[in-house]
């Protein structure tokens, strides 16, 4: 089975977010970058498990400059066989999906996996766009994935429960929590990652459809109003009369 996993670079989950250049850019000072957790913990690890059980290969693809190489090496250390980096700044989800589709269109991947969203732009866009561009079925937010007889069985959380879906390969599936367990790369993996192929490709020519013009931070809370633990009727009164929440 030939698997492609889309890997994105994001600020670490503990990052305190700040902006520069008139609030148009993330302030990258002191920011640690990681593989997007949904791409790494769930999509990549499940792809590796499927390969280990059924044979095949796992390729990762990333759209970004040379500053993305460390997170790509991390994915190779965890166990991907080879990696592709489209050497361009990802401008919007459409631009990114177009680059991945352009690479994947003639490679006959059986399955394209990616995280349900990145933890920076929270777009949930690339998977669906890729599926449409490649004319493939798409299942989003899979929390369980099994492959047998050329079909994928995917479980996904719905309002108040879950549903089990079946889809013919090839297809695109986005991964949510539960699809796999995070793997920590071992020393052998880290050593091997140094010599695994990381192929750099020139981008296809495409115009983005959206652009971010400004970032703002959420307004800070007015300050917490402390209520005496002995007087919970006061909390109930405040929630009813002041906050109008009950």
């Amino acid at each position, binding site marked *: 089975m030939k698997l492609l996993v889309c890997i994105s670079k994001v600020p670490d989950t503990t990052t305190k977010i700040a902006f520069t250049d008139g609030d148009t850019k993330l302030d990258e000072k002191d920011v640690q970058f990681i593989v997007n957790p949904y791409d790494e913990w769930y999509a990549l690890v499940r792809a590796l498990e499927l390969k280990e059980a059924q044979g095949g290969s796992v390729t990762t693809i990333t759209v970004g400059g040379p500053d993305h190489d460390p997170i790509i090496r991390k994915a190779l250390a965890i166990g991907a066989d080879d990696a592709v980096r489209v050497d361009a700044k990802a401008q919007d989800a459409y631009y990114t999906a177009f680059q991945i589709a352009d690479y994947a269109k003639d490679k006959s991947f059986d399955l394209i996996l990616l995280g349900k969203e990145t933890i920076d732009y929270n777009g949930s866009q690339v998977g669906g766009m890729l599926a449409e561009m490649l004319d493939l079925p798409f299942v989003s937010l899979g929390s369980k994935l099994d492959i047998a007889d050329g079909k994928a069985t995917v479980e996904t959380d719905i309002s108040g429960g879950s549903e089990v879906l079946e889809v013919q390969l090839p297809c695109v599936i986005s991964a949510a929590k539960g699809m796999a367990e995070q793997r920590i790369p071992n020393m052998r993996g880290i050593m091997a990652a140094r010599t695994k192929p990381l192929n750099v490709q020139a981008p296809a020519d495409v115009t983005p459809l959206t652009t971010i013009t400004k970032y703002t931070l959420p307004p800070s809370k007015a300050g*917490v109003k402390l209520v005496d633990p002995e007087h*919970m009727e006061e909390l109930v009164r405040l929630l009813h009369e002041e906050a109008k929440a009950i």
Partner: protein
Amino acid sequence: MSVLVFVNPNEGIFPKSALEVSTYGAKVAKMLGVDCHAVTYGNVSDAELARIGNHGVKAIHRASGLDQPDNGQLSKVISTAADACGASVIVCSHDLVGKAVAPRLSVRLKAGLVTGVNALPNTDGGFSVTKPVFSGKAFATERILTETKVLSLMANSIPPEEIGGTAAVQELSGEFGTKKVTVKEIKKYSGSIALPDAERVVSAGRGLKGPENWGMIEDLANELGAATACSRPVADIGWRPHHEHVGQTGVAIRPNLYFAIGISGAIQHLAGVNGSKVIVVINNDPDAPFFKAADYGVVGDAFVVVPKLIEALKSFKG
């Protein structure tokens, strides 16, 4: 020209999210001086369709022959309706279905997409919308550069408004393709309120000391008509199911009222809940970072405070 909203019925009933997109679409249509249309599918009663009209939609296009269409078919249904009514703005809900359909639609129509939009657009000299980014730690203003725009609307961003209008219903016909993704089974969690839809949420963390102590959390949730949730460590050690984990790598929620009990308030947890309108924190550590993000705080032992709170709620309700 028109605005088109996708209203997705759940077992023949329109959920709150469908009324939210109808209200949002009607307001955008008013800003642009055009009408708001809706698109739906399947077997939906006239009374249900009338609710959409009551929220400001003037015309409904329904592909009545479709049963449980997949996202590929739905994107064809919506783009067919968009052609039929000359839609310049298309809005769907930022939920499981919307998240799969909107990106397909964006590619199909070559229309710029912004997902998770939380407010009405700014149409002065262009078309810009805001949305939470960095998992709720910030907001971005995004400009859509194409003629046609696709938006997905974050839940709880706009209250549904009944304006007393009516919508004409017309059949939508077209070639919607074959179903590629089939539903094999639906499993329902027993008795609980679904977390992403909940107006009120009671959440607890490691401060509860063990899964056997969740009884009072469930009692409080019952008293409030709230869903229960938990922090990541609690889901990871198996005290609570994973689908209850709220935070940056779990479910992101925006209820009207969020109770955090015995949760310190790590930045990753806050990211998933700071869209909540009112936050109440109960923690025995006065230095817990969560108090900084809270509207109301109680410094005290949860095992003493929560039963008192339940009593107070009972006497409040009489």
